[in-house]
């Protein structure tokens, strides 16, 4: 579904990553990890066609990435919404269907039916007519998933979608994404700084540190040996109670600082 060959991305002198060769299959759940500024979000932006690669090739469904491709659904991180924002849940979802078109646009019967379908798919019917500014973070994220599914995409790109949600909502939102990819064979590229909420779903991990990366299964990548090598400093990886805990000089690399993701110039 996604294919990268010797891909590299740099901003001026700074190389975020290079020689990245990777194929993501339909229905595969790829988690992208790494400290802030290591190029996780930039990978998504390249897949969205918003930044060009500096070397190598990237294809999506066999074609080069382009802006606004209906093959891709994009789920951003939760952020505070003004309570006065003049949109209800159904209006936010509708933007995913025809929000990019020019003009005022009246919602026809087909659009309204599709909105209802999408709201049902994420279990948001009960607050369909509630102003989005009054919803909880978890409810807003469900709507953003519904919005991203509007074009029935083959790929879901998720940029820290669980950030600032409580554990209960983290799990609900992660399960929603997982269910979608199982039922519809949708490939998922999931950028996060915290693997544990999605650990049972992950097929493969792509771990960026400082211009270098490792890709493989959780078992291959999330080990003391691999990560010590990648960070260039001793890292202890402990598996406990179905969770992965990491200890070492990671904080210096900004590993546990959520938010403030890198954004290109």
């Amino acid at each position, binding site marked *: 579904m996604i294919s990268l060959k010797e891909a590299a991305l740099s901003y001026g002198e700074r190389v975020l990553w290079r020689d990245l060769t990777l194929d993501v299959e339909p229905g595969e759940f790829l988690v992208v990890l790494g400290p802030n500024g290591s190029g996780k979000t930039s990978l998504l932006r390249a897949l*969205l066609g918003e930044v060009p690669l500096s070397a190598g090739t990237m294809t999506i469904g066999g074609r080069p990435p382009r802006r606004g491709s209906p093959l891709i659904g994009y789920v951003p991180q939760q952020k505070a919404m003004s309570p006065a*924002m*003049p949109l209800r849940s159904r209006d936010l979802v509708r933007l995913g269907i025809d929000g990019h078109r020019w003009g005022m646009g009246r919602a026809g019967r087909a659009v309204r039916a599709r909105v209802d379908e999408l709201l*049902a798919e994420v279990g948001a019917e009960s607050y369909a007519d509630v102003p*989005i500014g009054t919803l909880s973070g978890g409810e807003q994220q469900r709507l953003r998933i519904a919005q991203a599914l509007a074009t029935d995409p083959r790929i879901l790109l998720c940029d820290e979608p669980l950030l600032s949600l409580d554990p209960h909502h983290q799990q609900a939102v992660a399960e929603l994404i997982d269910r979608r990819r199982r039922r519809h064979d949708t490939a998922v590229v999931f950028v996060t700084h915290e693997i544990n909420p999605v650990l049972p779903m992950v097929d493969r991990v792509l771990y960026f540190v400082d211009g270098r990366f490792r890709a493989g299964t959780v078992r291959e990548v999330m080990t003391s040996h691999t990560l010590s090598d990648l960070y260039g400093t001793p890292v202890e990886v402990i598996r406990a109670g179905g969770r992965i805990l990491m200890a070492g000089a990671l904080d210096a690399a900004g590993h546990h600082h959520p938010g403030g993701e890198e954004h290109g110039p």
Partner: protein
Amino acid sequence: MNDVWHQIFNFTDYGALLALVRNSLIAGAILGIVGGLVGVFVMMRDLPFAVHGISELSFAGASAALLIGANVVAGSLVGSVVAASIIGALGMRARDRNSIIGVLMPFGLGLGVLFLALYKGRAANKFGLLTGQIIAVDTPQLSWLAATSAVVLVALAVLWRPLTFASVDPEVAAARGVPVRALAPIFTIVLGLAVAISIQIVGALLVLALLCTPAAAAMRVTASPVRVPLLSVLFATVSMLGGTLLALGSSVPISPYVTTISFLIYLVCRGIGAARSRGAWTRRGAGATRTAGPVL
């Protein structure tokens, strides 16, 4: 006391006066539509401060035109578009934007004061630009106003949906193919045009009563993307026409009437909104916060 009251409200010879302000009423109705619609995006994009900043430079442009004997509407259009371009080019990010506006605003106001100080004409013209018109709108002024409004309305009609998307969630809109980076400066120019025509009637210091208050009031009582602009237009038009009709015959500019009506509407809407948020406003189906799993 009675004297002051008569200066503020005076309805003698009302019928005869009404004929004289026909142009003002048409202008008020047009501005109500433009202000009500533009205001929706001013609120969604959090731009009230930009409106104020643009209006001060627009005022500088208008007073320069007054001084050199050029068309005042054209002068304020030039000032507005210059301000909007600067804000659009330098202030893409919210925190940059506010500081740039803070720097531009006193400069614009200062220039305006200079031009007015040099101007030897009627004093009413001077204050009109800052605090609103007393005198009736003349026909050439009305044509300028109508033509500029037409441009603003056509632009809004075309931009409406993608601009909404980009205002709610710029990243997702960009991912979906909306030209977010181009829309921001384009909207700022449209806003500049709306400000330039508004200051002709309500004055540079009071444009927010037209470009912010009605939309803010509408958003207090509904979140429907159809009803918000409709109500906003209704509120702005009622304020403009009501203000003009009340000001008629008094020796006071129309602006205090417009701003007061618009403020009262806001207060009422705020009250309704507050009562609702305790009641049915956010009510939903049973057990919504802990929703049962997805149906599919």
